[in-house]
């Protein structure tokens, strides 16, 4: 391997660094979970809710940090509470978005106050808002990986009725699908996923992992299984490449200070999305997403 590659682009010795391997593990799981959930978030038109839930989680994280607790638990608790609140608001999109917007602003205000009076941890605001995957301790990393896998398992169980409710809610209801229950369980899973994603890229950017990869996949294929798989692969790649670039960026100018992972992941998410948009015409044809004209009779 050329020296400049080793120095500026990819350095194999990052695999012998525990912080980096932990970040790769947790980041990979979180990215996959976010992408899979995100596919349904996009399908159900919940992008705004996804973002709002993390912002409300921010208040929990800031509160936990003020009390000297692990910010992740505060974050996750508030995200889940927010999701349950949104679930209780029901499926009337307009009303739900307005109510969520108001509560979101209040929550952010309270969070800002928590951070202001928190003098113990000066790095708390930055960590919460923009993430710091390298600083998550190994125990938390392991928990994040397991919780992420649990989310994926729940989603696998929900898969068909969730798709049914998302596309044809009235028919699903008539067929006896518990529409409301499924919607609430899905929101809770989403809350857990964005709380975890916030550890990697921060509260402000967690939607990059939630919305970016599924949007990329939706540009390429119009079928659910393959779309979800592409989204997951894209999300994991973005995260791993981001961690790698952040690691080698210690050698980048201005030297001596690594660039934040969040910067790389969000840039890569945008990059993947743009490439997908450019590739779309060629890809769509190949995948048979365009109408195949066969007359039935």
């Amino acid at each position: 391997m050329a020296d400049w590659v080793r120095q500026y682009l990819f350095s194999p010795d990052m695999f012998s660094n525990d912080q980096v391997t932990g970040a790769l593990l947790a980041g990979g799981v979180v990215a996959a979970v976010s992408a899979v959930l995100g596919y349904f978030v996009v399908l159900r038109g919940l992008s705004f809710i996804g973002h709002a839930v993390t912002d409300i989680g921010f208040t929990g994280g800031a509160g936990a940090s003020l009390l000297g607790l692990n910010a992740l638990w505060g974050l996750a608790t508030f995200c889940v509470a927010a999701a349950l609140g949104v679930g209780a608001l029901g499926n009337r999109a307009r009303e739900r978005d307005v109510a969520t917007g108001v509560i979101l602003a209040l929550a952010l205000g309270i969070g800002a106050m928590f951070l202001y009076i928190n003098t113990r941890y000066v790095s708390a605001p930055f960590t919460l808002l923009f993430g710091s995957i390298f600083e998550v301790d190994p125990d938390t990393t392991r928990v994040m990986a397991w919780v992420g896998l649990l989310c994926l398992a729940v989603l696998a169980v929900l898969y068909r009725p969730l798709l049914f409710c998302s596309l044809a809610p009235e028919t699903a209801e008539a067929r006896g699908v518990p529409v409301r229950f499924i919607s609430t369980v899905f929101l809770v899973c989403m809350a857990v996923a964005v709380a975890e994603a916030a550890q990697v890229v921060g509260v402000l950017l967690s939607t990059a992992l939630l919305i970016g990869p599924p949007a990329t996949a939706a540009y390429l294929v119009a079928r659910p299984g393959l779309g979800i798989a592409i989204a997951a692969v894209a999300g994991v790649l973005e995260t791993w490449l981001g961690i790698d670039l952040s690691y080698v960026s210690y050698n980048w100018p201005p030297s001596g200070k690594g660039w934040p992972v969040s910067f790389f992941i969000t840039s890569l998410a945008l990059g993947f999305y743009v490439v997908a948009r450019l590739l779309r015409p060629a890809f769509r044809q190949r995948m048979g997403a365009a109408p195949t004209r066969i007359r039935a009779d």
Partner: protein
Amino acid sequence: MPILDHDATVLRLDRVTLQLGGREVLREVSLDLRAGEFVGLIGANGAGKTTLLRVILGLLRPGSGTVEVLGRPLRRGNRAVGYVPQKQQLDPDTPLRGRDLVGLGIDGHRWGVPFPSAKRRARIEEALRAVDAAHYADAPVGRLSGGEQQRLLIAQALLAEPKILLLDEPLANLDIRSANEVVRLVARIGRERGVSVLLVAHDMNPLMEVMDTVVYLAEGRAAVGPVAEVVRTEVLSKLYGYPVDVLHVRGRILVLGGGEVLMGGHADHEVHAHG
């Protein structure tokens, strides 16, 4: 081909009364739907059509009266009742194909992920052919026209192998040609599969050729029977509770009353024209 017992009642409503928000939406509605029968459920907006459908689907419980499906008391999620809701246009970027939407009719209500199989594919293909939708089943579903999406939803409902097919305003927002095609298609499916059809519309004129029975809803009350017996000045005047006139104009039926066209004036499938 199923053997039909044309006297068999598949759906029976007996004096169903329902109040919503203090208002009586349905008053003593009785009706018998026989196997293979094509019934038009006709009424203006607010006449109680959708409410009646929700009662038949088991989503609303009547205040009094009984509903029986295939001789048994009603329950929600009954597979014998297929439902095609009033369609909402899906987002054009919905990342799914028509056949994915249709496939939900087989197993969308079951937990877990679907296992692709030749049998599943063949059943979907058969349903797609039944509604003449096979040639656009691989296109992204949101890019299809309203009429095309309608057919996919009918195919989806057929996959549950229902005995009764409920269609809520399937002709709304369709141009005359598409509306006629949908009516003929539904009638053919009903005939071939022995499925009873209950089609909701606010204009009965596009249904005249295929309709066996009309359920005319007004003011929450229903008049049920063949068109010639129900759509008459005396019967409808009694139903509305004020004098109305039934006119036959150039092969169309119009119902006039209180200085307004109550039925058949301007069907909104004529207002909107898709390409």
